[in-house]
C-alpha cells in the first residue's frame, strides 16, 4: 500500500452482491420448487399403484431432468418377480 492508495476510492461491491444473488436465487427457486413437485408426484403415483399392486416404497423412483427447452420426468417402478398384475 502506498500513500496514494489512501486517496483512491475502492470499487463498489454492492453490484456484485446483487448479481450473484439474482443468479443464485433464480437457480435455487427452480430447484426447490422442483423438489417439491417431484415429492408430490412420487406420493400420488405411489398411491395410484398401491390401489392395484403392492410395491416397495423404495422401489419407486421419480426423477426430473430439467433442460433448457424441455424437461423430462422419469418414473421407474420395480415390481417383485412374483407380482401378478390384477385385472
Amino acid at each position: 500500500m502506498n500513500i496514494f492508495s489512501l486517496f483512491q476510492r475502492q470499487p463498489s461491491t454492492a453490484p456484485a452482491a446483487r448479481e450473484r444473488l439474482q443468479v443464485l436465487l433464480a437457480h435455487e427457486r427452480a430447484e426447490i420448487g422442483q423438489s417439491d413437485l417431484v415429492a408430490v408426484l412420487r406420493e400420488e403415483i405411489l398411491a395410484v399403484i398401491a390401489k392395484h399392486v403392492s410395491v416397495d416404497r423404495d422401489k419407486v423412483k421419480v426423477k426430473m431432468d430439467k433442460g433448457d427447452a424441455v424437461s423430462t420426468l422419469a418414473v421407474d417402478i420395480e415390481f417383485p418377480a412374483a407380482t401378478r398384475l390384477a385385472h
Partner: protein
Amino acid sequence: MSTVVVVTSGKGGVGKTTSTAALGAAIAQTGESVCVVDFDVGLRNLDLVMGAERRVVYDLINVVQGDAKLAQALIRDKRLDTLALLPASQTRDKDNLTPEGVERVMGDLRSKFDWIICDSPAGIERGATLAMRHADVAIVVTNPEVSSVRDSDRMIGLLDAKTARAERGERIDKHLLLTRYDPQRAERGDMLKVDDVLEILSIPLLGIIPESVDVLRASNLGTPVTMNDGRSAPAQAYRDAARRLHGEALPIVIPEERRGLFGKLFSRRAA
C-alpha cells in the same frame, strides 16, 4: 378480530427479537392489546430484550403441555399495560413444542389479544415452522447482505408452502423489514440498496431500520427501542413500520441518524 404476526428471517442475528419487541411495544402504545411470543425454545432472549428476564415463572412449553394455564405464563409489561410476553423455555427441548399444543395456545391468545407477534428462532427447523404455522401476516427481517437475503428468499418460499393459511389455499401477507441499513454505505456502493433487496425478494417493504447505537443501548437496558428514546431514528422507523402493519399508507423514508455538528463533519470518516 385478532392478527397473528410471525417475525422470521432464516438467518440468525439479523434483528428478529429486537424487531418483535420494538413493534410489539409500538402497537401497544396505540392502545391495542399485544402479546409477544418467544418461540426460540432453549435459547430464549425476548424476555431479556423486554426487560422481563427475572419475572419468568412459566413458559410456552408449560402451557403447550398443559402444566400451566396461559394466564399464569403471561407476563404483563410493567411500563405498558396493553403489552404482554409469553416467554420460551430455556431448559426444555424444542421437541416439546407439539403442533396440536401450539394450535391450542394460539387459539387462546387470539381470544385475549388484538395482536399476537411470534418471534421465530433462526433456521428452518420445528421451532421456526411452528412459529409461522398460524400466522396471518409475516414480517421477513433482512439485513442488506448476501447471506441474509438468500435465507429470506428461502423463508418466503416456506411461508407460501408450509403455513396453515397456505395449506387452506389462502394468502399470507408477507412484508420485508430491512434492518441494520446504513444509507451512507449503500450510497457508496458498499452495501445493497433498498431497491436491490426489494427487486430480489419482491415482497412489499414494511420499513427500513437504520444501523444505530440506539438499538444496542435499548437492549442493554431491557427496553424495547420504541419505548426507550421515542425520538431516536430506529424508534421512529419501527413506529412507522407498526403503522404500516396497521394498514396506514405512510411514505417510506430512508432514515438518517440525528447527528450533531461534529457527527456531521466527521461522518464520512467514521462510516
